[in-house]
């Protein structure tokens, strides 16, 4: 292994000119500097707005009898972040072997620990560092009275907890498959008290305690890293490689495809075999039924939509209230994330357009069929969200009709995003402060999200104005129907 690594290093050095390395370092530092400057100014502006309650003095839900202390919501969001990190880490491995390592290293009759450990430790510490950096703006925005040192301490504590989450995910790789659900539940339960630690910055002990726990967890996992089954090392390596390539090429659809692979999901789902076999009336009916069955067989993720829903409800209930515009922004982001999650079937079928050509139907009918389940799922989700908000006193009962109509229309955005064409890398890139970017990259990235946001405008307007009028419902219906019709009829 040392031989492979040393040879690879020598090979890379011989093919890297000093000038290129310096240019890469320069452009990376410049891009990171620009990102940091934009992020810092955005966070500080938002902080001032929250502190001053500048634009809007009221919440979306006024005079409510239910109140959620803001601190509770921040702790719950911190926990959601840690739990998501643990789940994500388990999907990615986190102890992995790349495809080449799997073919050339794993069959060797050697202890696998030196093979997998350095990369695992590197990735775990990088995850901890990234989590700490990402937590900093959250801390700045949610703890207005905290000093700079307090924010740094909270971020460092969260980083240590992130290391525990990743190391815990690695410990799951060492358990038997049948024991994994129980152990995963234990890990997620164990992270709950850890989510409180970043908020106890007045005390001295949380950071050392979190660091000690992280070191202990890492030491335990590192000692047994060579015992992770080869099949799981290969699975993790394949998923990690796919995710890495997707992020490198900024390909959101590929990222969704990569993360759809669940560890230990070897059993095929047979849901709906009876439904699929029943007689149909025509090709369109058959296609819709196949899409319905495929939607459920591909295991639509439930945790994400539920977490988004809970977050949306949480931000309108907290005390002191957040500005209404910020609450709406959270809902739009949650809506876009949920809409993206319903596009699994579309993303799969987009890979093999020849399959659609086999069906004797016009392409727009095929696209319409693909929209059915995302539209139903999103109508259900938006109906649930607006129903809760209406029950809390926001905008009146017509809000639910608006929500359902908006949800159905948001599926058009899902289709637009999931079937987006790949970026044309052959066109010359555009120079930006973040380095050269392919000409169509931004428009490709935003394709789909633009339509989802557009369709949500009437319902968000009703929330902002605290009035869901029949005119707005009509406008929402027209917009949703128009979006679906446009996307089904004219989209490529």
């Amino acid at each position, binding site marked *: 292994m040392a*031989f*492979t690594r040393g*040879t*690879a290093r020598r*090979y*890379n050095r011989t093919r890297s000119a000093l000038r290129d390395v310096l240019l890469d370092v320069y452009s990376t530092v410049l891009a990171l500097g620009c990102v940091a400057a934009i992020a810092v100014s955005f966070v500080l502006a938002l902080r001032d707005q929250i502190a001053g309650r500048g634009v809007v003095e009221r919440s979306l839900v006024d005079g409510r009898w239910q109140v959620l202390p803001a601190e509770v919501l921040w702790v719950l969001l911190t926990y959601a972040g840690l739990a998501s990190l643990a789940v994500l880490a388990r999907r990615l491995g986190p102890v992995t072997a790349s*495809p*080449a390592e*799997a*073919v*050339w*290293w*794993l*069959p*060797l*009759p*050697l*202890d696998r620990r030196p093979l997998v450990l350095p990369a695992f430790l590197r990735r775990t510490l990088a995850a901890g560092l990234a989590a700490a950096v990402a937590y900093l703006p959250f801390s700045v925005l949610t703890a207005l009275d905290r000093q700079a040192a307090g924010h740094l301490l909270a971020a460092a504590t969260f980083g240590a907890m992130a290391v525990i989450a990743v190391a815990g995910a690695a410990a799951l790789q060492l358990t038997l498959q049948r024991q994994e659900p129980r152990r995963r539940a234990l890990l997620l339960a164990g992270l709950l008290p850890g989510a409180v630690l970043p908020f106890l910055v007045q005390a001295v002990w949380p950071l050392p305690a979190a660091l000690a726990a992280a070191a202990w967890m890492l030491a335990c996992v590192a000692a047994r890293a060579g*015992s992770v*089954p*080869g*099949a799981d090392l290969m699975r993790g390596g394949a998923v990690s490689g796919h995710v890495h390539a997707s992020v490198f090429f900024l390909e959101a659809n590929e990222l969704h495809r990569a993360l759809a692979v669940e560890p230990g999901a*070897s*059993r*095929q789902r047979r849901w709906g075999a009876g439904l699929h076999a029943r007689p149909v009336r025509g090709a369109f009916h058959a296609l819709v039924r196949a899409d319905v069955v495929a939607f459920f067989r591909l295991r639509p993720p439930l945790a994400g939509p539920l977490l988004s829903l809970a977050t949306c409800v949480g931000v309108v209930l907290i005390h002191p209230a957040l500005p209404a515009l910020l609450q709406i922004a959270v809902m739009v982001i949650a809506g876009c994330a949920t809409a993206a999650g319903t596009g699994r079937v579309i993303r799969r079928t987009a890979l093999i357009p020849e399959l659609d050509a086999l069906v004797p139907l016009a392409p727009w009918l095929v696209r319409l069929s693909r929209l059915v389940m995302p539209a139903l799922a999103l109508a259900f989700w938006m109906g649930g969200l607006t129903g809760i908000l209406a029950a809390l006193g926001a905008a009146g009962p017509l809000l639910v009709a608006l929500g359902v109509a908006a949800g159905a229309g948001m599926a058009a955005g899902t289709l637009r995003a999931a079937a987006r064409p790949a970026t044309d890398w052959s066109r010359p890139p555009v120079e930006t402060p973040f380095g050269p970017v392919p000409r169509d990259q931004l428009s490709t990235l935003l394709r789909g999200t633009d339509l989802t946001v557009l369709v949500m405008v009437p319902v968000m307007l009703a929330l902002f104005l605290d009035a869901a009028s029949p005119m707005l419902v009509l406008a929402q219906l027209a917009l949703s129907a128009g979006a679906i019709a446009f996307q089904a009829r004219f989209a490529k």
Partner: protein
Amino acid sequence: MAGVGAVLEARELLVGYGDTPVCGEVTVAVEPGEVLAVVGVNGAGKSTVVRTLAGRQLPLAGDALVHGLPVMPDAVLFRRQVAAVFDEDVFFPSLTVREHLLLVARGHSVASPDKAVAAELKFFGLLGRADAVPDSLSSGQRRRLLLAAGFIRPSSLLILDEPEQRLDPVMRDALGRRIRGHAGAGAAVVLVTHDPRLLVQTATQCLVVGDFVELVDPMQGASAIAGS
């Protein structure tokens, strides 16, 4: 791990995906010096059978034993005894052909690894490309490199999944001789193939995989491939 008796033994082995078997039950034993050919039509489940024997996937039912012990692909002893060459066209992008083989030879503690690598390069016709990275090889040359990696290391069980793919006729004949030689040295070989000539050249018994799995002699196996 090495001992007397069958090197590989499958008892009522059922293989497949999810809960669905892809072929009938497999019961077979391969002794040292024997070459078991595995044949069948496309999709019959040949590769699934050998992937299960190699520990690449779990059986649905039954037992697969190597030297009397269950197949354990993560055990060091198993990895020392079993060499498997599947159609895995994956290489380290920065290692040359020679360095890939050197890695395997050193990893398996081959005596005089440099000499062993030179011999394999010569046998598989890769001497002229020894210092090239795999990305610059033809698909047939990459196949030769994978085969060389399978033969350079010691093994008491060698599993080859359609090794003739992408090889020219001369190399196929050489491969047949090499397989026979490997078996002659005391190893057991499991060979999935669609090539009747390679089968007849090498096999001592033949497993025809389908809805029912039956053990036949190599000539009958070759006829099964040829469809007569």
